[in-house]
């Protein structure tokens, strides 16, 4: 039974954690694409920026959370979400909007967003340096050990507090997004603009307002994903490089411009990553007697070494696009 616990800890939980982070990030990328029709490369840096804001406020008021009985970073998250939303709107107003109004091709804005990536990364490094830091400054990360109700299982399932919060927040964000897009006037206007921007304009929808709301959603969700990732592991100022590819893979695999696709894509990429670095020999050792005797089970039997984890999203991306060019959920082909 310990093998099962090992599997749950290393695949089920850790896949859900990275899947959630990728999904929330990919929702932002896909929303921006569906409204403004360009791939926003600076998205992962908005995630880092959000996490950095949380870190800053946590460092300023390290004891604030203890008074309320919640981790301080979690208390600071809403503030960081607001600031990151403003950053997103500001970036759009200064860099992307003038280009859009000139009627440039989307690729020009994509390149502009690459420029914004480099700029944001420079700024983040200037203020935060390059070393990684823990988001828990005066507190301890709560770790839950859940014992299994079987005699054979001696090891507990291990899950940390930020992981539980992340999974709950992801579920809430997905439900919230679903209700927003399907029940509210602004959400429907967003879908309308993604469906047919010209007709949305002709219908009297204020497209500038839709753009601002899109950035608010993308920015605040990015701050959330970045913060939870930093709480789960640690805040590394250059983490955006490692996030960008899986997030874009998730958005594209799910079907670009399709929010539910982004969620599915996020979990697909997250689980594929964890499964590919999972050490299968522990499970196989258990059933060793099924194999011929001359066959040895190596000590380390993962599909790829964890240092090559980043190739997995690439592989999924290529595989899915060959099989289904518009993604799992039919995305926009522009």
């Amino acid at each position, binding site marked *: 039974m310990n093998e099962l616990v090992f599997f749950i800890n290393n695949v089920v939980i850790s896949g859900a954690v990275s899947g959630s982070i990728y999904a929330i990030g990919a929702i932002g990328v896909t929303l921006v694409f569906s409204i403004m029709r360009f791939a926003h490369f600076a998205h992962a840096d908005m995630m880092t920026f959000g996490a950095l804001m949380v870190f800053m406020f946590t460092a300023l008021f390290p004891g604030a959370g203890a008074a309320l009985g919640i981790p301080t970073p979690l208390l600071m998250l809403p503030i960081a979400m607001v600031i990151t939303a403003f950053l997103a709107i500001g970036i759009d107003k200064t860099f992307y909007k003038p280009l859009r109004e000139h009627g440039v091709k989307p690729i020009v804005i994509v390149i502009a967003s690459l420029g914004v990536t480099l700029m944001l990364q420079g700024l983040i490094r200037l203020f935060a340096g390059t070393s990684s830091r823990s988001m828990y400054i005066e507190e301890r990360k709560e770790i839950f050990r859940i014992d299994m109700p079987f005699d054979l299982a001696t090891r507990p399932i291990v899950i940390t507090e930020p992981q539980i919060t992340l999974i709950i927040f992801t579920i809430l964000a997905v439900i919230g997004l679903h209700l927003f897009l399907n029940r509210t*006037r602004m959400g*429907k*206007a967003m*879908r*309308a603009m993604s*469906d*047919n921007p*010209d*007709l*949305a*304009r*002709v*219908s*009297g*929808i*204020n497209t500038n307002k839709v753009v601002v709301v899109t950035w608010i959603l993308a920015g605040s969700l990015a701050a959330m994903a970045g913060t939870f990732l930093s709480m789960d592991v640690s805040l590394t100022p250059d983490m955006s490089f490692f996030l960008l590819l899986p997030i874009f893979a998730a958005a594209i695999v799910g079907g670009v411009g399709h929010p539910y696709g982004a969620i599915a894509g996020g979990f697909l990429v997250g689980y594929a990553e964890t499964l590919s670095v999972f050490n299968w020999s522990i499970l196989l050792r258990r059933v060793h007697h099924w194999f011929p005797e001359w066959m040895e089970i190596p000590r380390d039997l993962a599909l790829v070494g964890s240092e090559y984890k980043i190739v997995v999203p690439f592989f999924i991306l290529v595989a899915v696009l060959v099989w289904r060019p518009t993604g799992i959920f039919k995305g926009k082909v522009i």
Partner: protein
Amino acid sequence: MSLLNATQVEGGYGGMNILKGVDMAIDKEDIGVIVGPNGAGKSTMLKAIFGLVEVNGGDILLRDKSIKNSAPNKLVELGMGFIPQEKNIFPSMTVEENLEMGAYIKPHTTKTMLERIYSFFPPLLEKRKQPAGELSGGQRQMVAMGRALMTEPTLLLLDEPTAGLSPLYMQEIFDRIVEINKAGVGILMVEQNAKQALEIATKGFVLASGQNLYTDTGQNLLNDPEVAKSFLGG
């Protein structure tokens, strides 16, 4: 006072004038039909009125107030509706959501207007939860017209409402346009099916190379041998 009065309109894309001084006047009891050969600037004129094409000369008045180069959402607020020729629905949204988007600027009237649109286009009622992209061509056109009517416009601009429809649906759409007009909505439309459209027109405008060639009642244009020979296929 005319509902819409466009005088000597010049305009086009990127500084190139496709319209070279077009006059057009429509009252609320009128059905105006713009006909003419390909490239005459028919759709361009409609788009120029609705602020989708830059106007460089002349003036466009709506109830004696200039609306030249106004943003489309402002014009919707002033009581204009526009139905583009293609891509005139939100395909992934349901029929009802399409109609709701039409009433975006007047959310409090959505409910009563939905009922009116459904009684005007009964086929839409049973399909209201279906994505509009799954409907047939004629029903899509009903969705497009319903969407534009949701704001209760006083002037409706239609760009080739019968393009690609079977003759049966074409007649149905023309009948509906006459009904809408009788309810007090001025109509201005571009049509390829010139003969049938001029039958219902109170005003016909024949454009060629971005200029007015003939302006008369629909019947007179139909009976004019010159117009018939050059623009109505004999």
